[in-house]
């Protein structure tokens, strides 16, 4: 019997060994795969188990984390949801993250290894760092001015500091409260469906994700290309431009909204926004040089990140002369985001040097120690410095004597360009009102702000939608806010 008891005991030992080996298989060998299984909620629980880092504007957080006590514990709230929605995006337990919440998620959720002084120790102890904070470049006053200025109208504003590329304001209306998407309950689903079905598309970030025909504001690019290419050498020289202008190779004629454009000088044509002059100018410059200048300003650039991606603005390079003529006055396939037009204005203001725009000044730990700062981006020469000087002069004239007088700021030099872009089949859509500008306080050494405003408003009368009348006052408010701060 003793022998058989021993065999039975050996059998029990075998069972024990099987259990131990199997436990090691699950807990060590397969552990990684099981941990990463999307149905395993532990990663979500860990992610939402600690307060998320905050997004700061002007030193104050515009986000909060609310302890719900549920399994996905901390939910995001926003102090000024709609105001900063195009910047923050949302952070939803159900629908993921967008914009800064997405681009800086590693820092905000605490997974970014740079937040940790002892990376190895964290790996071993499976600890997670407290979420880091994201300090933005935004100017709270400018952001508020843009948001108030747009009011109930549909549109967007982008403002940049020309010398650095820091984004000072980024507004899109109508907006929404991203906090409505935080959490996991049925209310979140309702908000999501409601926002997606809204015909006004409140979740669309018009400042960076929507392109518009830039219309006359694109004449800044065309004028710069003409000056750079040497097609125009003197701002006051008479140009050879008939009015009306027959598009090359077609019988279509192009007219102006104002009189006195025939053979107008560049200065006069820019002031009056003569379509005929700039259409012909674009053709005279040629598609190669036009495209080169447009590209130098940032058109056709698919790689721009601020740090989230920006819809590429386009300037069509495979065009015939008639199409080039239309492209040069911001029609045909020429499309631009408000941010892109702010970059155009900023390049002019900054002596022809374009700084890539960015939103994140620095990332800090939850205790405020800086762990990374905005990388220094090399400037890009969008035009010759002399061209930039001429362009500043032209844009100043527009505000002082031309279509942009609504943008005048006492005690500051302001340059601008209006635009009223027609669109739709046979231009039947309500035109978009554009205004791009920059401003330099009398005591400042360099221009402090460059702005682009677009207003698309179906409810206003067609006649009243002009860049100077609708968009310029908003730009002025934003510029004033920046100059005052």
């Amino acid at each position, binding site marked *: *019997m*003793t*022998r*058989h*008891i*021993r*065999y*039975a*005991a*050996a*059998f*029990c*030992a075998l*069972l*024990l060994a*099987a*259990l*131990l080996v*199997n*436990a*090691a298989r*699950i*807990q*060590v060998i*397969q*552990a*990684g*795969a*099981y*941990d990463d*299984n*999307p*149905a*395993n*909620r*532990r990663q979500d*629980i860990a992610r939402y188990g600690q307060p998320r880092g905050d997004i700061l504007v002007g030193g104050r957080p515009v986000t909060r984390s609310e302890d719900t006590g549920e*399994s996905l514990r901390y939910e995001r709230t926003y102090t000024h949801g709609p105001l900063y929605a195009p910047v923050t995006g949302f952070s939803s337990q159900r629908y993921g993250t967008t914009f800064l919440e997405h681009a800086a998620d590693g820092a905000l959720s605490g997974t970014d290894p740079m937040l940790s002084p002892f990376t190895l120790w964290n790996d071993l102890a*499976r600890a997670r760092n407290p979420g880091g904070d994201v300090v933005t470049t935004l100017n709270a006053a400018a952001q508020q001015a843009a948001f108030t200025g747009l009011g109930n109208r549909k549109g967007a504003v982008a403002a940049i500091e020309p010398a650095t590329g820091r984004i000072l304001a980024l507004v899109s209306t109508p907006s929404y409260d991203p906090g409505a998407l935080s959490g996991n309950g049925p209310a979140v689903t309702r908000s999501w469906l409601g926002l997606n079905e809204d015909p006004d598309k409140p979740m669309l970030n018009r400042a960076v994700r929507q392109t518009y025909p830039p219309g006359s504001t694109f004449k800044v690019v065309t004028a710069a290309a003409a000056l750079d290419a040497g097609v125009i050498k003197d701002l006051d020289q008479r140009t050879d431009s008939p009015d009306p202008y027959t598009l090359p190779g077609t019988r279509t004629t192009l007219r102006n909204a104002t009189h006195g454009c025939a053979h107008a000088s560049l200065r006069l044509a820019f002031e009056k926004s003569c379509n005929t002059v700039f259409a012909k100018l674009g053709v005279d410059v040629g598609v190669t040089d036009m495209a080169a200048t447009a590209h130098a300003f940032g058109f056709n650039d698919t790689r721009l990140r601020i740090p989230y991606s920006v819809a590429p603005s386009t300037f069509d390079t495979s065009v015939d002369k008639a199409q080039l003529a239309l492209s040069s006055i911001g029609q045909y396939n020429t499309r631009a985001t408000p941010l892109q037009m702010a970059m155009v204005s900023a390049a002019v203001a900054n002596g022809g040097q374009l700084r890539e725009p960015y939103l994140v000044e620095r990332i800090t730990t939850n205790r405020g120690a800086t762990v990374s700062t905005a990388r220094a981006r090399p400037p890009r020469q969008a035009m010759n410095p002399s061209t930039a000087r001429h362009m500043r002069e032209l844009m100043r004239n527009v505000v002082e004597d031309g279509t942009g007088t609504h943008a005048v700021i006492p005690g500051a030099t302001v340059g601008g360009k209006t635009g009223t872009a027609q669109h739709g089949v046979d231009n039947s859509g309500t035109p978009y009102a554009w205004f791009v500008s920059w401003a330099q306080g009398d005591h400042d050494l360099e221009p402090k702000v460059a702005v682009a405003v677009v207003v698309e408003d179906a409810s206003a009368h067609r006649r009243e939608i002009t860049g100077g009348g609708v968009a310029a006052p908003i730009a002025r408010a934003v510029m004033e806010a920046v100059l005052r701060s």
Partner: protein
Amino acid sequence: MTKAGTGTTVAADTPAPAVLLPRRRGIELALIVVAVLLSVYGYCHVGLARTGAVPPGAVGYGAGLGVLALLAHLAVRLRAPYADPLLLPIGVLLNGLGLVLIYRLDLQTPGDRAAPAQLVWSALGITLFAYVVAALRDHRVLQRYAYVCVAAALVLLTLPIFFPAVNGARIWIRIAGFSIQPGEFAKVLLAVFFAAYLAANRNALAYAGRRVWKLQLPTGRVLGPIVAIWLVSVGVLILERDLGTSLLFFGLFVVMLYVATGRTGWIAVGLLLATLGAVAVGRMEPHVAARIQDWLHPFASIEAGQGPGQLAQSLFAFAAGGVLGTGLGLGHSILIGFATKSDFILATAGEELGLAGLSAIFLLYGLLVERGYRAGLALREPFGRLLAVGLASIVALQVFVIAGGVTGLIPLTGMAMPFLAQGGSSVVTNWAIVALLIRVSHSARRQYDGQVAP
């Protein structure tokens, strides 16, 4: 596990020398103190991790467990002074750890507090332990009650058939708000019966019958009892839909039969019958078939878009623990949902204590079983030997069936992890098992004949 014969080897024909083994009660007491302190530490750790404060009941819990363990120790010291010093501390530690795990899960299920009831059941179990150790002067007395035992076991097994099914299994009876699993008690009674029956009939059973190919089959006359037991197991399986219990009964019978007769033929017959029964029931019972499907494809429900099933959640919990675990109170095994505190209690241990803690728990069970077998080896009379082997095998099989089930090694069958899992009947039964092992080992060590060191 069977390191025997390491003591002085004495010629087989010499009579038992009057060598008295040391009693080792002091060691037992020291180990019990360690076990209680470990449990209290775990209890405090859970409170600190979950709420940031030492739980208010820590002193009461520690004192309660300590007093109970002391009571058990006194019973052993007075009535079974030669008993193995490891059996009781292992029981106390496992029971204390189980209480900690259940308390820890209670914190996340405020509507369902199981730890207080479990503590009451543990107290009952330890009281029963003390009573058995004190009242049962010699385990051989039980031999006389073999047929009473089997009758009682059959009654207990058939009782739940008259009560409504809970979660697909008819293994509970409800009396005055208490859920009792009579099948748990039946295990011990059956072990006693098997030991008595086999001790009396082992020679007849060992008699070889016909020879088929290379197998020496038992004769038809003695085949009767084994077929009867098989029928009872299958009956339990079909009527109560309890795969685990029938597997345990049958496994227990086969192991004891093998030890008693030494015939591998019995194992072959047993495996054949078990396979037949399992296949037939797997075909007939959708409940059992689903368990097998779940075992083969634990992530099928995820792929079907229905979220993870219980077994998948259990595997996630074990995986989340890794080598060192998340720490007591810091895991998310509550995601398993239903039966987290009972069948799946091991997943909480695996997640929060890691592979290290889980291995320690397995080794504790291994040690408990080994001590049982060692007592069996040391005894000279067949009833005591079979009883010790049977009781130890119950623990071994039960641990394997449920631990293997929740870790995806074998199909999952509902069964309580001895001492750890929530369930009053189970705790009481396990204390009864340890009490009987204490009695057997007391006899074994007192009659030490110098041959096999118990």
